[in-house]
């Protein structure tokens, strides 16, 4: 009861045409949660993220946000469609400030400082003036991460953020996230295929397969979903960990 609810997801279903991608999903996101959202390919993880962000219309149910939340989002496919798009790294990161500064402001010195600081956090300070299309996939992903973080979000939704990062960058990145989560109470939803790598960082697992099949701790997750959740050798059933267990 002491936890503050940030978002209430109430029995939502989402469709693509006739195809049902999410069915009757129900959960709360609490302030300070570090959630990892797992499931097989096509299980609806990205769809759920987009629904939360209002990028995908929900067919039924209701999503209720506590007022005035700033949400950062790293999409799954960060690869640029157009490598020749004229945008410098600094310009891209600065678009993350629009949410904060309003749609009509021009950025000032302070803003440029914030951008620089963020690039430094991701080890990209030397690339500020480079064209984003000239960066590698992993570097581009880090730039887009910086764009999501520069707004100092209340909630960060990351769709497979570590898929293009090398081992060192990934560990560093997860540590940064954990630090923001514990020290600044940043709420995080991290979508991943690699449950093992995220154990020790996240504190709550949501397991999705069109339906929400599990919602609880890592410990309980590995106990109740003994087979790899990515191989359908068992009949999954919904488990919600009790408040006291």
């Amino acid at each position, binding site marked *: 009861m002491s936890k503050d609810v940030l978002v209430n997801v109430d029995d939502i279903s989402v469709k693509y045409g006739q195809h049902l991608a999410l069915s009757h999903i129900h959960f709360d996101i609490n302030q300070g949660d570090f959630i990892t959202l797992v499931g097989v390919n096509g299980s609806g993880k990205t769809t759920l993220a987009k629904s939360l962000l209002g990028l995908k219309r929900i067919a039924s149910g209701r999503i209720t946000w506590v007022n005035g939340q700033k949400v950062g989002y790293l999409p799954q496919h960060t690869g640029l469609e*157009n490598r020749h798009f*004229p945008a410098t790294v600094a310009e891209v990161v600065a678009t993350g400030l*629009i949410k904060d500064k309003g749609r009509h402001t021009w950025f000032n010195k302070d803003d440029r400082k914030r951008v620089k600081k963020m690039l430094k956090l991701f080890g990209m300070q030397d690339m500020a003036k*480079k*064209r984003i299309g000239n960066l590698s996939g992993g570097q581009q992903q880090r730039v887009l991460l910086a764009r999501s973080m520069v707004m100092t979000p209340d909630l960060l939704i990351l769709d497979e953020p570590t898929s293009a990062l090398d081992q060192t960058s990934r560990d560093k990145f997860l540590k940064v996230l954990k630090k923001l989560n514990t020290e600044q109470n940043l709420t995080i939803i991290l979508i991943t295929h690699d449950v093992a790598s995220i154990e020790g960082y996240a504190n709550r697992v949501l397991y999705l397969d069109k339906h929400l099949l599990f919602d609880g701790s890592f410990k309980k997750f590995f106990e109740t979903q003994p087979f790899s959740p990515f191989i359908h050798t068992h009949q999954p059933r919904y488990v919600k960990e009790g408040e006291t267990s």
Partner: protein
Amino acid sequence: MSTLELLLRAFEYGFMWRALIVGVAVAISSATIGSFLVLKKYAMIGHGLSHVAFAAVAIGIVLNQSPLFFSLPIVTFASVIVLRINQNARIHGDAAIGLMAATAMALGTTLVSTSGGFNIDLYSYLFGSILTIREIDVIFATVFSVIVIGFVLYNFNTLFSLTFDESFAKISGVNANRMNTWLAIFTGITVVIGIRAIGTLLISALIIFPAIIALQFSRGFKGTLILAVIISTLTVIGGLLLSFILDYPSGSTIVLLNSGIFFLIYIVRSALRLQT
């Protein structure tokens, strides 16, 4: 008379001044709007609209109405519709534009043939003729280009965010639909005010070329936009003066100047790349 004398002579004529003012106004609007269209991969919209403008002008001439005022609402409306179609994933946007362009062209030529065929009047609308520019065109073009500049400056970061990544812009609170509609409306108006100086069939080139040329040089977005405006303005002024000296159609001269610059850059760059 030497070329220089001829050039100086140009500035003695009222129509030349009117052409230069309208030309610069069109250059600025088309380069700015064009940069967004090219980067959003909507460049073909300009091409489709120029054909619609041709049909609208033909209808205007047949009905004995002012072709420009007649085509303004038609082209702007078509622009908004085409944008919608492009965003609707179920129809192929490029195919839709191709269909629209061909239909408009067929309609236009049919109308023209029933009313006595191509004449000087229509020819000037097709490829631009600076002699036809009136004061009202000057006022309209100037006011409009100021509005476009104001719009872009007021919404600069939003427009950039939207062009780079529409989803992210949306979650930043940008109303993508509304901004895209404004862009479509401005595209339509740009095409129409470009008719006098550049011509219906060539205006799309002035929407595409400056952005494409600027892209060769600038790494950033702001730089690209500024460079596109400079290139566009210089080629329009240069093209208008050349067309006066050589007595060529103004639109054709301006577009050829742009093509020339583009291919020159392309060749130089390829040569440099071969050397290293």
